[in-house]
């Protein structure tokens, strides 16, 4: 676990006290924040700490968490993906259009949709690595392009901007079991998306901690020049990371389209910022090289708890974005302090 939070360029000093080591973990601030927020809403509202309340919080958290984990990997690798939110709509639309217009089996639609997502991710990656342009601007381009394609193609094929009828597709029952089923525990309906989120978070953590590719991710984001000089395939790593966020967008898009049985061409806009916010609250640095999948998951949990907690508390939820902005700024400040402390602690 310690390796998850240690970038290739900043080795943990042996013999440091556990307290100091804990203080330099990037997800520290988010863990404290999550505990405080959970305790607050659990004591202040009747619904938060019930089975139904937890189910609602986790429902919002799960799909955000899947994306936040993938975006965190990409951010550790030093890049952004602004097209990820819109891509959740695009992938859902690909599945829904194939199913609705061509009557294909839903699994076939889902498979084509994955291929589409991987292509978009590959394209983002190759454009960023070949041109050396900031990913911010490249994926902003993809963001607009996909937005246009989503609406344009849907309109062309259906005359409306919404595609439905997914539940009439062959194989829908099985797809629903895999992507959108729910288990009732107490009076809460727990969605299978929660399991997907946990699986994604665990896989991403193992990837970061246990594999050579994980080291490449930290190195590509933290110190790309030195990484290249020691033979890390920085370009290939980044392309794979863009394909990872695209795959996550495909998973979330599929979960949504199977669950809602229809998809509107303009959804997903603006969601990309929530992914980045969750990753940053979870300890990712905007400069790359630092962060963790667990942290991003906790960031998503903070978003979910607050968003639903405010509703439970019967506060005016017009104010939620203000809170989100405050959290983001606080997280960025804490992260900066943690990183500075680390730099001071490390010998050279």
């Amino acid at each position: 676990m310690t390796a998850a939070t240690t970038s290739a360029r900043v080795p943990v000093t042996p013999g440091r006290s556990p307290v100091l080591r804990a203080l330099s973990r990037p997800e520290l601030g988010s863990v404290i924040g999550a505990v405080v927020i959970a305790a607050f809403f659990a004591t202040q509202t009747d619904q938060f700490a019930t089975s139904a309340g937890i189910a609602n919080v986790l429902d919002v958290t799960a799909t955000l968490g899947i994306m936040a984990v993938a975006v965190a990997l990409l951010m550790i690798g030093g890049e952004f993906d602004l097209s990820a939110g819109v891509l959740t709509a695009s992938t859902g639309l690909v599945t829904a259009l194939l199913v609705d217009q061509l009557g294909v089996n839903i699994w076939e639609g889902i498979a084509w949709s994955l291929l589409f997502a991987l292509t978009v991710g590959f394209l983002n990656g190759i454009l960023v690595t070949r041109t050396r342009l900031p990913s911010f601007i490249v994926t902003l381009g993809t963001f607009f392009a996909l937005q246009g394609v989503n609406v344009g193609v849907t309109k062309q094929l259906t005359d409306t901007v919404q595609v439905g009828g997914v539940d009439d597709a062959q194989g829908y029952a099985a797809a629903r079991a895999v992507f959108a089923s729910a288990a009732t525990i107490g009076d809460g309906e727990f969605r299978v998306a929660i399991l997907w989120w946990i699986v994604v978070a665990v896989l991403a953590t193992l990837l970061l901690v246990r594999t050579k590719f994980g080291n490449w991710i930290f190195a590509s984001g933290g110190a790309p020049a030195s990484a290249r000089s020691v033979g890390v395939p920085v370009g290939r790593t980044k392309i794979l990371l863009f394909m990872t966020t695209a795959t996550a967008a495909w998973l979330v898009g599929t979960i949504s389209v199977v669950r809602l049985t229809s998809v509107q061409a303009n959804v997903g806009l603006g969601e990309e910022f929530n992914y980045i916010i969750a990753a940053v609250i979870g300890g990712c640095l905007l400069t790359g090289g630092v962060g963790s999948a667990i942290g991003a998951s906790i960031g998503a949990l903070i978003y979910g708890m607050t968003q639903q907690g405010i509703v439970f508390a019967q506060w005016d939820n017009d104010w939620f974005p203000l809170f989100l902005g405050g959290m983001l700024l606080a997280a960025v400040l804490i992260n900066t302090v943690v990183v500075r402390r680390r730099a001071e602690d490390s010998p050279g």
Partner: protein
Amino acid sequence: MTGRGTWSALVAAAALIVAGCTAGSRSTANTESAVESLSLPESATATRPSEGDPDRRLTFAVVTHGTAGDPFWDVVKTGAEDAGEASNAEIDYLSDPEPGSQAQLIASATSSGVDGLIVSMADPDALQESIASAIEAGIPVVTINAGEERSAEFGALTHVGQSAASAGEGAGNRLRDAGVTTLLCVIHEAGNVALEERCQGAARGVGGAEQGEDVRTLQVNASNIVETETTIASELQADPEIDGVLTLNPAVAVAAATAIDTSGSSATLATFEFNADVLQAIRDGQLLFAVDPQQYLQGYLPVVFLALYARNGNVVGGGQAVPTGPRYITQDNVDIVEDPASIGTR
């Protein structure tokens, strides 16, 4: 794989180029039009009614505050295009949700010398100057959808739309008649005046006299329907007194239907606007009614009005606002709208 990649690259490149161009040309169009409209008042006479060839093909610009892909505005656009075909008029549909950009679009339509302007006024103050310039340049203006109360003041020929407040009140009345005492009004766009007005109208409708304390409002994020569904469920769990839910967008309506189901609430659900899923929910009895603003008419009628004005000098209703709704879709008449809805005209 490669074919797809190349295609996407082209699309991405094209989108960037287009975005760059429009951003650049907008600002210049704005200043040019201001200059033109002031210095060339004689151009005004060219578009006045009963002058020129009555068979001349007219050009109308429709400038709305809709976002691309919004199902509501999509139907308005279709309505305008259909009317254009029927009235021998070219329709130039432009939209930008940002009021400043919308004003610039109006200015560039003015400078390109259209025969008529159709404008939705979500933010009338921001559009006042550009509409004044258009009218000064002799271009007749019809306002649609929002901004009814300022339409005549700005010098528009007429307004075509559905008054948000009275439609909200009508919906509230119907919900009250169905036994609703505590209503939850779900707002999916923060800061949209028309949505707030619908909720306030509904408050009056449910509460009888000018009291709104029996209506709660809830803000949801319509970009994320799963989150919307859960947020509504949480609200219903937190406040079991709520026995009625009014949504203002069809996707949110479907989410609310599921939320009512999962939270074990017995609240009565109604919505503004509809899509195929909403119609199915009405048929299944999950939704009491949908308020149909008949927005196809908000695109269609102004084009016809402007064509009649240009060719024949007619002004419908002497300039009074022409209401396109509300029409209530219930279990009794749901089948009538089924077919038009699936081809994008409802």
